[in-house]
């Protein structure tokens, strides 16, 4: 019988009631008395020097409060980068200054050059049009490979070149890997592009800055996945505001997908301008601005080689990747193609030798940073594509080749520095073969052929690393932040609980799932537990939500804090029951003395904590509130096997997805319905990347896909019903919940199976097509067939 509450129950998402009935409180819903509006004048040139910027006419326009330019921010810190990568030669990456408003030079279309604060947005916009801005265009750097050739124009004049870093991993293995390739029985090579994407959360970014002159306190309301990180970065590195004078609030946030992790100029601007103008200052991004100012995702150009021995065992992997950083280093950009990518190159397979080379490149494009999966989709895609290609070259079944090379014993230390604690790749593949009815594929292919369609089957596995941690390790890898999570559990006198978590929910359903855990631990109703997040003023310092870390890390902190609560409550109960603490049991919301019928209800214990009349005051403080910080000892390693069946229309190249099956091992599952929803969303985004989404620039650095007229988002009718399973569960061994994280899996696991399936379909028709770069638009598939 499925449970109807606690861990394992598909409790309905309580937050959806307010989201779906218009009762949410998003940042744009926040309007502060007396607020002014800001309009950013953005560069329409990809690369150039600011020859003239005259704001005098704009300043005299109706309603204008003040006009700001880069000069106003010269004395202020630049936008900080939170991760320093060390290159192959032991040198730190090149790190350019990233100004709040462009000064002297502009480096990408959409970079803010000036900002007008006015009574209304329309007045601000009118005044921005009156700014006399002259930019002398310079040749733009767009293509990564030409960006790092000698004589290429430089994005940053003060750097030695456009190369941010040249990273080798594991550098010590480089020669051994090369030797393994020399000795290999077979080498499969694949060159591919991992297409640039725009995250497109439903809610665009918003920032509202407020300043209280009387107390010298700043408040920033912002669409963030991690308000404490913004407070630290903006306060300490940009504006010089101590944390006790700066409050950052990220209320309801309508989707993030990574792009709302980062600290953006508009946030710093609104905070700064609120004090400078002594007015609350609000900015709401238009969709057009979002396309050219939200950090983009992916954008790798990769060559991967797989060496196999004579028995088809994987002997070595060697990759060379060019990773686009865009014009500046966004907050966590350097970590994505390195530590979130190189460490995953072993995949689900026991390949003894791996060498990953990544060249991160500056170009005159929007900064690129983490996007759902961040580095792991790029790793999975190249690996699962090259394995498929190898299987075809060798004439072996792609599933059999994978099975032959699976890691089967855990823990498993990969040659790329991580240790998988648990997994069962055979079980997930078995489950996939059964659920996707792979044995029935040939019959389905014949049926499609009868209708003039080419049917293809693509299968792949994936492994990811979630719950990024531990802090001391990531510190060695260059992180300039810790990666623990925090929770304060406050029990009220009448027994209800409030959990103040450093995790942030922007669609994940924490308000529903987190209470399920505590309800299970104490044996009380989920409705007695409330989750508070998103406000630095009332939550403990936390690192926020990304990398599928909330339940694994934030949930673990909450468990630890709740354990402390239970330990103290047990002491109180032992006093009330006049029994030894070791005889007290907590079950179904009551403390009882083992082997007797003596018991005291949860609510009586909590009341005693706050009305301590009959209470061991000499031994125990009153009150019931505990905080825990949890710093995990390892990543978690969700894994899975995915299958996609496509039909290709040979006349037009149009791909339609006929079936999609996802079998995931997320360890223990707290709310299966929410997990299924997360997987659905991830697959939709992965299919979006595989078939539709393409952020493209022309050679002058103009964004070609700058609106939904040209940037194709996946829509419901692009997708089939997904078959999703997470019954294969190998619990994580090192967090108290045994959970692994499910937020990114779908986006990581789905692109390779789609592309594998299309290649399979085309080859079934005798077409000599071994690869097509994403997105597999009708035009590209048709061209590949010609």
């Amino acid at each position, binding site marked *: 019988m499925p449970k109807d509450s606690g861990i394992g129950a598909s409790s309905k998402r309580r937050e959806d009631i307010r989201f779906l009935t218009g009762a949410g409180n998003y940042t744009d819903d926040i309007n502060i008395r007396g607020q002014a509006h800001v309009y950013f004048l953005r560069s329409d040139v990809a690369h150039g020097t600011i020859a003239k910027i005259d704001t005098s006419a704009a300043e005299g326009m109706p309603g204008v409060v003040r006009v700001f330019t880069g000069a106003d921010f010269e004395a202020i810190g630049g936008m900080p980068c939170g991760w320093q990568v060390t290159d192959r030669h032991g040198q730190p990456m090149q790190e350019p200054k990233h100004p709040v408003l462009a000064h002297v030079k502009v480096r990408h279309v959409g970079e803010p050059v000036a900002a007008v604060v006015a009574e209304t947005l*329309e007045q601000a*916009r009118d005044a921005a049009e009156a700014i006399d801005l002259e930019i002398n265009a310079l040749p733009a750097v767009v293509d990564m490979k030409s960006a790092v050739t000698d004589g290429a124009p430089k994005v940053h004049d003060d750097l030695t070149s456009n190369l941010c870093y040249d990273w080798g991993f594991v550098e010590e293995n480089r020669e051994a890997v090369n030797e393994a390739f020399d000795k290999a029985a077979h080498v499969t090579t694949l060159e591919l592009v991992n297409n640039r994407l725009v995250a497109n959360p439903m809610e665009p970014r918003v920032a509202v800055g407020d300043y209280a002159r009387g107390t010298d306190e700043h408040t920033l309301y912002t669409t963030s996945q991690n308000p404490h990180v913004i407070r630290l970065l903006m306060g300490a590195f940009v504006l010089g505001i101590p944390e006790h004078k700066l409050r950052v609030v990220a209320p309801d946030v309508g989707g993030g997908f990574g792009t709302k992790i980062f600290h953006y100029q508009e946030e710093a601007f609104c905070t700064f301008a609120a004090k400078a103008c002594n007015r609350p200052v609000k900015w709401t991004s238009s969709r*057009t601005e979002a396309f050219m100012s939200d950090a983009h995702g992916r954008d790798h150009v990769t060559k991967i080689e797989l060496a196999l021995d004579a028995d088809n065992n994987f002997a070595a992997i060697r990759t060379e990747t060019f990773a686009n950083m865009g014009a500046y280093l966004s907050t966590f950009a350097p970590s994505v193609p390195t530590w979130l990518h190189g460490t995953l190159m072993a995949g689900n397979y026991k390949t003894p030798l791996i060498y990953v080379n990544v060249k991160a490149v500056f170009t005159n494009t929007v900064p690129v940073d983490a996007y759902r999966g961040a580095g792991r989709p790029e790793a999975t895609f190249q690996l699962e594509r090259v394995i498929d290609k190898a299987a075809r070259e060798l004439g072996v079944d792609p599933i059999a080749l994978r099975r032959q090379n699976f890691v089967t014993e855990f823990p498993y230390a990969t040659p790329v520095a991580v240790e998988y604690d648990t997994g069962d790749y055979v079980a997930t593949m078995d489950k996939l073969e059964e659920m996707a009815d792979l044995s029935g594929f040939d019959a389905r292919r014949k049926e499609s052929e009868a209708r003039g369609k080419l049917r293809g089957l693509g299968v792949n596995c994936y492994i990811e690393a979630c719950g990024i941690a531990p802090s001391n390790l990531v510190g060695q890898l260059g992180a300039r932040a810790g990666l623990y999570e925090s929770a304060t559990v406050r029990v009220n006198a009448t027994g209800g609980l409030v959990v103040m978590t450093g995790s942030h929910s922007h669609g994940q359903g924490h308000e529903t799932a987190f209470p399920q855990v505590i309800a299970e631990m104490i044996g009380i109703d989920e409705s007695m537990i409330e989750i508070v997040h998103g406000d630095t003023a009332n939550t403990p310092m936390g690192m926020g939500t990304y990398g599928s870390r909330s339940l694994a890390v934030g949930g673990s902190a909450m468990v630890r804090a709740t354990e402390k609560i239970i330990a103290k409550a047990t002491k109180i109960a032992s006093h009330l029951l006049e029994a030894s603490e070791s005889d007290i049991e907590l079950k179904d919301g009551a403390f009882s003395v083992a082997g007797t019928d003596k018991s005291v209800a949860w609510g009586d214990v909590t009341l005693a904590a706050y009305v301590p009349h009959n209470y061991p005051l000499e031994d125990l403080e009153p009150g019931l509130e505990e905080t825990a910080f949890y710093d995990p000892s390892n990543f978690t390693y969700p894994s899975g096997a995915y299958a996609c069946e496509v039909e290709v229309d040979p*006349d*037009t*190249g*149009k791909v339609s997805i006929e079936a999609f099956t996802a079998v995931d091992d997320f360890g223990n599952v707290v709310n299966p319905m929410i997990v299924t929803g997360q997987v659905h969303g991830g697959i939709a985004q992965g299919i979006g990347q595989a*078939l*539709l989404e*393409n952020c*493209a620039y022309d050679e002058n650095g103009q964004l*070609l*896909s700058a609106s*939904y*007229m*040209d*940037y*194709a*988002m996946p829509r419901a009718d692009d997708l089939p019903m997904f078959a999703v399973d997470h019954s294969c569960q190998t619990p994580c061994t090192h967090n108290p919940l045994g959970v692994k994280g499910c937020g990114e899996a779908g986006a990581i696991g789905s692109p390779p199976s789609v592309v594998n399936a299309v290649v399979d379909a085309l080859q079934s028709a005798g077409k000599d097509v071994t690869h097509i770069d994403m997105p597999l*638009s*009708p*035009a590209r598939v*048709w*061209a590949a067939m010609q």
Partner: protein
Amino acid sequence: MYNFDVEMPTSIADAVAALGKEDAQALGGGQTLIPTLKQRLASPSVLVSLSGISEMQGVCKGDDGKLCVGGATTHATVARDAASSFPGLAGLASHIGDPAVRNRGTIGGSLANNDPSACYPAAALGAGATIVTNDREIAADDFFQGMFTTDLEEGEIITEVRFPIPDASNYQKFLQPASRFALVGVFVAKFSDGVRVAVTGASNDGVFRWSEAEAALSANFSANALDGLTVSGDDMINDLHGTGEYRAHLVGVMTKRAVAAAG
């Protein structure tokens, strides 16, 4: 947006008068114009809404057997009210945009705008419609003059579109994946005196008639009649979503499908 005034005339005459003001512009369903205004790409001083003019609304059969569609009739109304009389046209209208677009956007606005990827121009040219304005009647063959360009004069309003009803017709639209306008759309109309084929989405010159296909289909109205016929991709649109060559190929595929579907 910039500031503007709005007028809501209830007759064509009043609308024409209102459009005589400096920088006045007609507003149909606003599905193209309002986004343009929001982007500050246009700055009319007055918007003259045509949606309150009852004589420009609705679908009816004329005495000459033609289907008359009022210039301010929405796509949704055409999809519903032309379904039995001219299913090829109704089918086209029913696949424009989404329900919100179909319930606001109008045939007059679509034809006046003459977006190279819009659907209605293919129907008007393919069926050999007559575009009726406050001033004159214009044959579709003369009306479309290249992307976003028509024979309309400044301030001239499309009041009605008269469609000869073909014996058989069909519109096949291959979706541009992002906008879901036509990457290539082909309208085929079979009349007793011959077949007309109009292509949208493909050409740098906007909607055009494919005369070789018309000749072949007039002789033999079957998809096979098109075997071996191709159009050149040289002057076709080349963008993120497809090359000219690909579009030229799709013209052939979509025409065959339209013929097959028209039956």
